[in-house]
């Protein structure tokens, strides 16, 4: 990987006015376009940023005013859709949930923000990766309510406590921050990964569900929960605050103590 750093300036006409209070930060992005590049390389951009700006704003600035080929996914821009997971200063985050003020260097020092694609999934272009292996693992754990027998006419009854039991894992937005922060996933591409297990957990511990045994069988597989080495990277990475490692542990316990 070369460190060919090119300090870029505006190439497409006048730049938008710099807002009051903005400082110029260096945004260093790991670029890669298989159509033109033999390997990924770092490129730096000077971007005016307010402390309240999201990192996503900086990427937009680059794309809209400096280099239109800069490629990444984004949609909702407030941490709900899960499109813009990336490595920001070495940790997996949603670009729309990290504010510049939390990345600022100490007074007087130049701030540099490094951004790379999430790790362990093939890179399609710049920060945009192939999500299919991730989604395949999700689909493989039967992530849907499994029931047998006749459906009731009204809703199924579920106590407040039973509903609370799996509340945490219903928050998952499938952004892949957890799975692509997992060292086991990096080295063993066939491991289901934390997100798939979180989504299995969501149903295994749902009192209405009758498919727990099927899912546990799947997760008891060689590529299943036993691969987890409890490094807690996933919990640290989750932008929704899900206790991912705990959920994986609970699935392991369910496997150990199931009848």
């Amino acid at each position, binding site marked *: 990987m070369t460190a060919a750093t090119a300090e870029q300036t505006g190439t497409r006409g006048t730049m938008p006015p710099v807002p009051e209070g903005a400082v110029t930060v260096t945004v260093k992005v790991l670029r890669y376009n298989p159509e033109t590049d033999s390997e990924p390389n770092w490129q730096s951009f000077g971007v005016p940023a307010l402390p309240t700006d999201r990192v996503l704003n900086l990427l937009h600035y680059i794309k*809209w005013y400096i280099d*239109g080929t800069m490629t990444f*996914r984004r949609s909702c821009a407030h941490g709900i859709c899960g*499109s813009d997971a990336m490595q920001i200063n070495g940790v997996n985050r949603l670009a729309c949930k990290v504010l510049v003020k939390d990345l600022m260097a100490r007074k007087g020092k130049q701030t540099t923000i490094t951004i790379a694609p999430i790790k362990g999934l093939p890179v399609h272009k710049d920060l945009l990766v192939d999500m299919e292996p991730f989604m395949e693992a999700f689909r493989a754990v039967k992530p849907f309510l499994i029931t047998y027998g006749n459906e009731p006419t*009204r809703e199924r009854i579920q106590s407040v406590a039973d509903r609370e039991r799996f509340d945490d894992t219903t928050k998952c937005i*499938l952004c892949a921050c957890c799975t692509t922060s997992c060292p086991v996933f990096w080295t063993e591409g066939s491991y289901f990964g934390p997100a798939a297990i979180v989504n299995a957990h969501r149903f295994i511990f749902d009192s209405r569900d009758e498919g727990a045994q099927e899912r546990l069988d799947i997760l008891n597989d060689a590529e299943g929960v036993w691969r987890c080495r409890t490094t807690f990277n996933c919990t640290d990475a989750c932008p929704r605050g899900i206790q991912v490692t705990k959920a994986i542990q609970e699935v392991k316990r369910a496997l150990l103590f199931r009848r």
Partner: protein
Amino acid sequence: MQFHKYDVVIVGAGGAGMRAAIEAGQRTRTAVLTKLYPTRSHTGAAQGGMCAALANVEEDNWEWHTFDTIKGGDYLVDQDAAEIMAKEAIDAVLDLEKMGLPFNRTPDGKIDQRRFGGHTRNHGEAAVRRACYAADRTGHMILQTLYQNCVKHGIEFFNEFYVLDICLTETENGPVCTGAVAYELATGEIHVFQAKAVVFATGGFGKVFKTTSNAHTLTGDGMGIVFRKGLPLEDMEFYQFHPTGLAGLGILLTEGARGEGAILRNASGERFMERYAPTIKDLAPRDIVARSMALEVLEGRGAGPNKDYVLLDCTHLGAEVLETKLPDITEFARTYLAVDPVKEPVPVYPTAHYAMGGIPTNVHGEVLRDNDHVVPGLYAAGECACVSVHGANRLGTNSLLDINVFGRRAGIAAAEYAAGRSFVDLPDAPAAVVEEQVSHLLSDHGRERVADIRTELQATMDANASVYRTEETLKQALHDVQALKDRYEHVAVQDKGKRFNTDLLEAVELGFLLELAEVLVVGALERKESRGGHAREDYPNRDDTNYMRHSMFYKQGEGLKSDIRLDYKPVTFTRYKPMERKY
């Protein structure tokens, strides 16, 4: 170019698209084409709930819900459609529960319900607990549950396939929809999907505004495509501004907060909604609350250093209610404004939120080509459609209801239509329009930047066509939009590659935004009254004599700058006579 053949093609994988897919996919060979990965859609951003008169926690019935919907829509609602929606709401919620949606529960284990704006007991007596919810991520749970069920049923998805055109084949009985044309983002390839039926579920166009709760990707693609085909759009001047966007950012804070008891206050701490809606106060419908907030600011009672917002006070709700029932919005305020709602009130201001108008359909989701005829084979549902169940102002939660009720209906109708018919031939050169559009945008024809045009568009729409409008501001907006359309002729796409060309994508999206902004402004100029979400300072009253009618907009001719023809469609009444709207 690649060619595919399916009985039903669904465009869009948000709530309406996936609800339609679950129905169509179990009945016939179905494909879902989606610009985004499924679960990325903005249905997931909906927070507060989905109303249905389950009467789980207090007396309620669907007739009251129908009435509230009609009154909330300032009587521009088609009453037969509202009745269907309120009636089918109950099964829509129960269906979702059976699909696995983890609703919050009452102490006896039933689906819990909370209050929401404009939803009342016995025709306006008091607020009623009608909204079924899953914390403040109801939309997220609906989207996840629907995707989970698509996985269960093995629905076929074409992810990151951006539909840019539909195929209409002329027959002696008028045009028939025979397919859709998509641009594959991964490769830049163009795909023609021949289909017996096409369902549009492409969402809204909030990105015509700067301050909006909408995602970057909500650019009105489906509405724009249909409009360019010469088919009408309905009631586009009615755009909803949600009262509680995070000030300056537009990020949504659910009305469910007020449903749980939060209060809006001005700079002096006054609960100002008591003056504007004495009966239901902070739980008045969104148009009324948004205007009240704007007035407080205009009259100098706004909070903050620039007196340009009001405050949403949740502090009396306590940490537990906020953490369990409103955790996401609590986090949004902390993350984006560094304000802790447990301890201090949150700065809020109206944010562009929802298009009441859209592609006109009947209650089966069939798309109209004029007041009396449908386009066989073409369906629409969700925000991109106008049934019209929202009239001039949508009630909170009724959008999640709309996507489930009419998404389901459109999916069933499309599958049943396809089952009884053979394929109709595609028109000649079905991909020609898209090929021409893409190659033109990629060619060198100017130096205008997409971001500049879009920023200026959003600025003029915010300044001139938002909560309050006048002839003067709207004329300014029209002038600006038309000038921006001129500049769009010279727009430059820097990325010339075929692989994930999101630069090209943004240029295409901007074209749709410009198209729809003009329609919105033209409609707002022509409607010389105030009704629901459309508030004219120069015509402050509702005028049922002249304007109790839907607007129908038709594009005249080719090209971005062609004229708009405005026509009208009568409102359907069943049992509710228009009354003065007071809360």
